[in-house]
């Protein structure tokens, strides 16, 4: 046995001894079976020697992490030590803990375990404890997040500004000496409503999985003995004799039904028991049927939200909501399942503590921006048409089809171009910069102006000719940039100046405006 280092160091849950070998066996099963078959074909004498090795190997390997990993929580730090030869020690100051996420796969849940991930505000650096007993995990989460309880978590939704300074959300002196402060009441923001299931088929995220699965199936089908060219040809002739329409119809209905089942099942698996609440000054999300997730984002680190309405979802009045945060693994955290737009906007407003930004009308970017939006899509369509024309010429196909296809593409390009222009826009709503974007999907990004850490004004040659610019607000949150596209240069400068007063102050000169703003 490897002894614990003492001084409050503890091991992970002993039930990990069951978890890891099962995982290890799962990973090792293919090579082991291959090896066994290889051996059994050559000679049977080695069996008694080999069998214990292949059975015990994964178990020993699985047990090592439990023996060698220890963690402790001191007054100021959380520390994790692991490894035998290369000992690594990860530490995080408790006042830097920004997020504590819990996750449990089905196997974890059977064993009553939770995987704990502690984020410290530095993007890639997370401390992982896999796995703790569920009760320990929840206690650890509460105590880690409880330590830095500060501003009242339950701010009412009346448009009152939160303290804008992130330092103001540090540990309040009153709580500083208390190890585990009295738990603040959690304020629920949203919970799953199964009538939202109607949005599942209109959210195409899982289509990729389905197509991948079908691709795999078709590969298998290729291997089937019945599927050779002769049978295919004769089957095809037989089919065309009868009812092409009926076959196509059946395939379409079958595909739609499959999609319905897959999308609804995926929605249920992912969002079962979904609950979003505000506690300890953090947003806390739990969901999942088989694998449960519990994600915590510190509210002081949430710099904005993004409401996305993919084209299909928008047809049925649905939307998705993400938060833009700093110091979270990928910055953009989806905090709501596809749900009615009003719900997404309501929760978004609750997260922002402001009513305006998600509903305020956007300033349009004008006819020149519309022209660019149209041209961008038309150029894409022309690229495709040229490629198609080359193909047509190569294969000597009928030109009528190309003309029809090209016409359809151009019409589609105009429609998409107009749509992308209508999604374009910007606004400055109180302390929030709002940017509208998206070609097919309508996206509205809201960023706290306090989270803006720089500006980029970029003009291509074409944009300079017509006085437009792309204004980028750089930030540490979310995707690290918010772009206001094709806005008039003077409007862009005025917007940047108004959003971050003083930053541009020295560089802005008043010039007689050539056009009315």
């Amino acid at each position, binding site marked *: 046995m490897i002894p614990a280092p003492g001084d409050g160091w503890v091991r992970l849950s002993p039930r990990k001894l069951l978890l890891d070998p099962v995982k290890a066996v799962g990973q090792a099963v293919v090579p082991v079976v291959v090896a066994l078959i290889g051996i059994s074909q050559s000679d049977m004498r080695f069996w008694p020697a080999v069998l214990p090795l292949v059975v015990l190997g994964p178990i020993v390997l699985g047990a090592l992490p439990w023996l060698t990993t220890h963690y402790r929580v001191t007054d100021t730090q959380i520390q994790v030590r692991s490894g035998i030869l290369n000992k690594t020690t990860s530490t995080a100051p408790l006042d830097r803990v920004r997020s504590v996420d819990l996750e449990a796969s089905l196997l974890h849940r059977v064993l009553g375990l939770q995987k704990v991930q502690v984020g410290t505000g530095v993007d890639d650096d997370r401390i992982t404890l896999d796995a703790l007993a569920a009760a320990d995990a929840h206690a650890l989460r509460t105590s880690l997040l409880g330590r830095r309880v500060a501003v009242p978590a339950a701010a009412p939704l009346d448009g009152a500004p939160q303290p804008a300074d992130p330092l103001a959300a540090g540990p309040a002196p009153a709580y500083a000496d208390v190890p585990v402060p009295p738990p603040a009441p959690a304020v629920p923001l949203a919970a799953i409503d199964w009538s939202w299931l109607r949005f599942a088929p209109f959210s195409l995220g899982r289509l990729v999985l389905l197509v991948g699965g079908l691709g795999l199936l078709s590969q298998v089908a290729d291997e089937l003995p019945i599927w050779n060219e002769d049978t295919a040809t004769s089957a095809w002739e037989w089919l065309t004799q009868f009812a092409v329409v009926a076959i196509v119809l059946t395939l379409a209905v079958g595909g739609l039904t499959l999609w319905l089942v897959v999308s609804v099942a995926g929605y249920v698996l992912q969002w079962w028991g979904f609950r979003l609440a505000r506690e300890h000054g953090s947003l806390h999300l739990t969901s999942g049927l088989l694998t449960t997730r519990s994600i915590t984002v510190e509210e002081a680190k949430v710099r904005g939200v993004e409401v996305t309405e993919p084209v299909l979802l928008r047809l049925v009045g649905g939307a998705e909501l993400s938060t833009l945060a700093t110091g979270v693994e990928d910055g953009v955290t989806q905090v709501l399942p596809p749900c009615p737009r009003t719900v997404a906007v309501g929760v978004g407003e609750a997260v922002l503590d402001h009513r305006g930004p998600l509903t305020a009308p956007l300033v349009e970017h004008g006819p020149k921006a519309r022209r660019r939006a149209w041209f961008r899509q038309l150029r894409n369509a022309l690229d495709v048409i040229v490629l198609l024309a080359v193909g047509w010429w190569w294969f000597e196909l009928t030109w009528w089809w190309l003309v029809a296809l090209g016409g359809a593409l151009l019409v589609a390009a105009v429609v998409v171009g107009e749509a992308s222009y209508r999604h374009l826009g910007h606004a400055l709503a109180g302390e929030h910069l709002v940017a509208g974007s998206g070609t097919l999907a309508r996206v509205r990004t809201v960023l706290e102006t306090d989270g803006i*850490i*720089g*500006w*980029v*004004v*970029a003009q291509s040659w074409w944009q300079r000719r017509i006085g437009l610019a792309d204004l*980028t607000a*750089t930030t540490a949150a979310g995707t690290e940039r918010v772009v206001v596209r094709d806005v008039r240069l003077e409007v862009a400068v005025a917007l940047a100046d108004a959003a971050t007063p003083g930053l541009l102050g020295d*560089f802005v000169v008043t010039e007689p405006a050539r056009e009315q703003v």
Partner: protein
Amino acid sequence: MLRAPAHRVSPQAIGFWTVSALMGDAVLVGGAAVAWLVVPGAPGWVGLVVLLLAVVAVAHVVLMPRIRYRVHRWEVTDTAVHTREGWIGRETRIAPISRVQTVDSRQGALMRMFGLASITVTTASAAGPITVDCLDAETAAHVVARLTAITAATEGDAT
């Protein structure tokens, strides 16, 4: 409107940009010419394309550094870093000094021959690094020292 930043880059930059553009374009045009000569039975219009490429390359080498020198400008005030760059397009970048996280300076072998150095100022955003290309080395050292002093005095984690 935004006014241009106060300072030009070093005049040596024209030489540096000319030489580096010349090296890149010479490889490209030379490669194309060799390919045209080597491949048997290449039609005559391919030669015209190579010639056109050469003309464009010459224009690039002659014009690009001069336009760049007129466009590129920089300024560091007590509160912000402001740069303008580009030669066909324009890009203006501004970052508050209070949000600056790192200050790097870089000097390649060719840059050293012209006595130049570049400074890159990064913030917590991947979209926000600001590069001042081709300062003369002495100015660059001064600017780095000044920026480092200011950022060291700033509190908070600059996000």
